[in-house]
């Protein structure tokens, strides 16, 4: 359990631009994992809309993954942040879970803060970026400054350039099938009761009708942290932005397709309505975010001379 406030590095004198540049470089750096094999981007791959296309990614030593990798598109607008922990309310807190968490082990850096500082400080570009980003801390390299920079970068991953966004702001209308699908989505199917708002999530924890309290992989959902039996099987509603790019679906990646995922919600749709809902979900796709150079792995040239 992380202490309240852990991972927060307040440094008002730091350059926001430097924090973002540093965070981007760290996001793509395998040295944030114990054996250098995993960066944040290994699982949150920009080409997959910051998810990874597998059910659950193994940890650095091949430890079995527990949950499906969520997309990071518009993640700066979300709190809480993960499938099953309502205490992870900030990106700064959340970053330490994959880096140093043990349930499950992902990047495997628990107890390795000094080793991380050793690796990063060996790189002159990092030394300059940490000093520019955290001048009051004199460029200190630790879990707190690393997670703060990662959070600053993740808040820049913004996508509101979908066909649906354009249609709702007076642009080209959606195809007829997508229009019908949105009506089903917001109407009889009841999808919008949880997948609500501009980001298509209420950020609440719910158990799907018909889903067991304990998933086949043994994941109790929110109950893993709350200890309350009524929280078994409850997972946070994921955003549906770029959902067409982020399969497989559900907390354990057990739904291979959007159609499978819709069925698992316990909603009975006619084949025509199901196809229309999928057409609507396709209209929530922004492929530009997957190729935006602002999110790509930075080159060897340092951002600071």
């Amino acid at each position, binding site marked *: 359990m992380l202490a309240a406030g852990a991972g927060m590095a307040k440094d008002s004198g730091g350059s926001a631009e430097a924090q973002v540049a540093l965070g981007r470089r760290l996001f793509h*750096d*395998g*040295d*944030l*994992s114990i*054996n*250098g*094999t995993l*960066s944040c*981007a*290994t699982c949150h791959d920009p080409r997959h809309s910051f998810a990874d296309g597998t059910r659950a990614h*193994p940890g*650095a*030593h*091949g430890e079995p993954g527990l949950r499906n990798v969520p997309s990071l598109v518009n993640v700066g607008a979300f709190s809480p942040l993960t499938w099953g922990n309502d205490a992870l309310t900030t990106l700064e807190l959340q970053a330490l879970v994959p880096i140093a968490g043990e349930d499950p082990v992902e990047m495997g850096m628990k107890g390795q803060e000094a080793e991380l500082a050793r*690796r990063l400080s*060996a*790189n002159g570009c990092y030394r300059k970026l940490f000093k520019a980003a955290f001048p009051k801390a004199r460029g200190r390299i630790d879990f707190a400054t690393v997670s703060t920079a990662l959070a600053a970068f993740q808040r820049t991953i913004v996508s509101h350039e979908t066909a649906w966004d354009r249609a709702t702001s007076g642009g080209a209308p959606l195809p007829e099938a997508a229009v019908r699908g949105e009506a089903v989505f917001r109407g009889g199917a009841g999808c919008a009761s949880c997948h609500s708002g501009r980001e298509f999530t209420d950020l609440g924890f719910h158990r799907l009708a018909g889903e067991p309290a304990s998933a086949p992989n043994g994941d109790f959902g929110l109950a893993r942290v709350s200890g309350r039996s009524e929280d078994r099987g409850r997972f946070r509603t994921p955003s549906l932005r770029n959902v067409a790019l982020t399969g497989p679906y559900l907390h354990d990646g057990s739904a291979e397709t959007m159609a499978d995922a819709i069925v698992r919600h316990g909603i009975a749709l006619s084949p025509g309505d199901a196809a229309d809902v999928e057409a609507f979900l396709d209209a929530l796709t922004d492929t530009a975010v997957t190729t935006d150079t602002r999110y790509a792995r930075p080159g060897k040239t340092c951002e600071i001379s």
Partner: protein
Amino acid sequence: MGAAFDATLAPTPKVDYVLEPGKPGGSVSFGGLFAFDVAKAGRYRIAQNGRSWVDVIVDGKAVASAAHGHGPECSGITKMVEYDLPSGRHLLQIAANGEAALTVMVAPVR
């Protein structure tokens, strides 16, 4: 070709990759470059007992993978990637492995 070989990889900072790997790994990871000969054009599978990033380079360009997956249970093969390759000598580029030792096999897909 068609038989597993035990590769000894170098620390990533010492590897001079032909192309930047899709996932290069950190300074404490391992990688390497190996040549292999394809006698007959077709689909070939790169199997390994690790989870390293694999690129196959033909005429200086990375070939897009055609399929990927896991090996059979208990086979020791943790990752397989398939490529459609022309005949000739090609480069296998391995990156972001967690250890210096890696067992790799290149074999035609039948």
